[in-house]
């Protein structure tokens, strides 16, 4: 996955200034911040509020409303496992349990070695090749138990 940068207020200010010209700029700016820093750092909230003439509470309200926005850094890799019905029909629940056990994490948690953050996703639109996952943005279909365990090994080395 793309390397993220350490927090830098100047860098955040640039990103916010570049996005603030658009109408309804909150989500594009938050996405850009997360793409750069791997999450939406707490320090950025007042800066976004200031630039968009919003209260900090309003910006926090947006960040916390959307499942995508992380308020803490993720691990080196992000594994999104589809939890929705089409994947359930092909054994998705068992794979989810297996991933949680192998990583010793719950949803939206990062393994102790910081290698993998496990996130649930409700449909990747790959429903005819279920069960499915997205690993650092790369789609995987027809996922099997063996493939999942091999993938986790690969991500952790």
């Amino acid at each position: 996955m793309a390397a993220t940068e350490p927090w830098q207020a100047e860098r955040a200010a640039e990103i916010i200034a570049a996005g603030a010209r658009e109408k309804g700029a909150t989500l594009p700016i938050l996405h850009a911040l997360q793409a750069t820093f791997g999450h939406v750092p707490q320090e950025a909230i007042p800066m976004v509020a200031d630039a968009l003439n919003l209260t900090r509470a309003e910006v926090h309200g947006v960040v916390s409303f959307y499942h995508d926005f992380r308020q803490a850094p993720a691990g080196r890799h992000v594994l999104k496992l589809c939890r929705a019905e089409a994947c359930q029909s092909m054994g998705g629940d068992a794979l989810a349990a297996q991933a949680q056990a192998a990583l010793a994490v719950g949803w939206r948690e990062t393994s102790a070695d910081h290698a993998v953050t496990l996130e649930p996703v409700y449909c990747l639109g790959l429903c005819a090749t279920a069960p499915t996952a997205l690993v650092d943005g790369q789609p995987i279909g027809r996922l099997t138990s063996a493939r999942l365990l091999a993938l986790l090994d690969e991500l952790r080395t």
Partner: protein
Amino acid sequence: MPSVRLFVPRDAGALAVGAEAVVAALQVGMIRRGVAADIVRTGSRGLYWLEPMVEVATATGRIAYGPVTPVDVEALLDAGLLSGGSHALRLGPPEEIPFLKRQTRLTFARCGIIDPLSLDDYHAHGGWRGLERAIAMAPSDVVETVVQSGLRGRGGAGFPTGVKWRTAAQAAAPQKYIVCNADEGDSGTFADRMIMEGDPLVLIEGMAIAGIAVGATRGYVYVRSEYPHAIATLREAIDVARRAGYLGSGVMDSPHAFDLEIRVGAGAYVCGEETALLDSIEGKRGQVRAKPPLPAHRGLFGSPTVINNVLSLAAVPFVLAEGAAAYAVLGVGRSRGTVPIQLAGNVKQGGLFETAFGLTLGDLVDDIGGGTASGRPVRAVQVGGPLGAYFPRTLFDTPFDYEAFTARDGLIGHGGIVVFDDTVDMARQARFAMEFCAIESCGKCTPCRIGSTRGKEVIDHIIRGEGDPAVHLALVADLCETLKFGSLCALGGFTPYPVMSAIRHFPEDFDR
């Protein structure tokens, strides 16, 4: 310049099962043999059990092979892949494959065939003719053409698209907007994604026509973040179209201005609801608005806004190019034209099946889908996403049209069908419907926000065999009534469909 052309999808569904590795193997294999071919990256034909599917252009048309793995590539090249040679994976002409042959592809006519970013390909396959005709017509005639086609919103609600347009066209305002709802969050659906990845220019053309029809100069496509490939392809397609003058200050050298941009969602299912989507574009929490005012009167940034699904907008270029009658002649009752149905989940032949309305659920699941992937009996299908009803085999005679599904306490939604075999536990599915509603509720309506959590807890009691199931079921039914009548939008309002249909049609799973 090599004369041989190979076609391999770049669709996320094909990439998910190894299309990229197949391309790499083809390149290595061809270099070793000293032969060359252009590898054109297309969308998917939508025959996902055959992906990755490789096609080669021959003098007598294309020949398809699939499902191809990198391991097969050497043998395929030895067998004469580049000239359509015979091999165990050879499927013959793709359009002769029964799954494809039985379809009526209007919206998906080009998907899987053309390079999605090639203006030449798009033009050669009939692109821009609808926009050309729209420019030559009075805007009000464009609106009436869409009204007469009978096209209804393909996002789920089934509201007549032309009527929405007429309302926005009649609203006087200095700025109006066209918003495309590409927040395709329903499990079992992927038609919007396929269009954005496989034929994005048809969506751009449809939006430009909508803009001209109602007098909107600006458009937004709200695409869910779970679709990174669709976002990338659509973004490139917008650039391509803008550079060629199909978007901008003078669309195709006409006096009409229209331009559009992409907004990326952030993982909230409820933003597929049109008013929540508008709030999300405005930069707010995606909370549902009370209607009225209708978005056509006061929508995005307070301006008149047409908000349509990807499939509705992508159907428009055909309607304009071929005329309303050519579209309206297909279908049954008040469900006119074609519907892109998506067969998904535990199904042997999963994929995109565009057809005129009217096939029965049984035809679709057993005949076209070929039953389950697991080989076990089909026990239930969920139609219309996580807010759609579960249907048992006894209702497989239901024809696929809006009214027939409503009459059987279901909905066709965005046209997704998820198949389950006989290992499914319907109490767990009912529980999931409540859980999903609780996770995705925007929080505005109490029945949806709290009722879904209580519903999940009560079903947990049933699953664990605690207490009297009849008492629990009465409580669930009561909760569902409250959700249905006490919620502003379909998330709370329709969660009762999967829950109550599971209880009604599969009572044995709730008695334990």
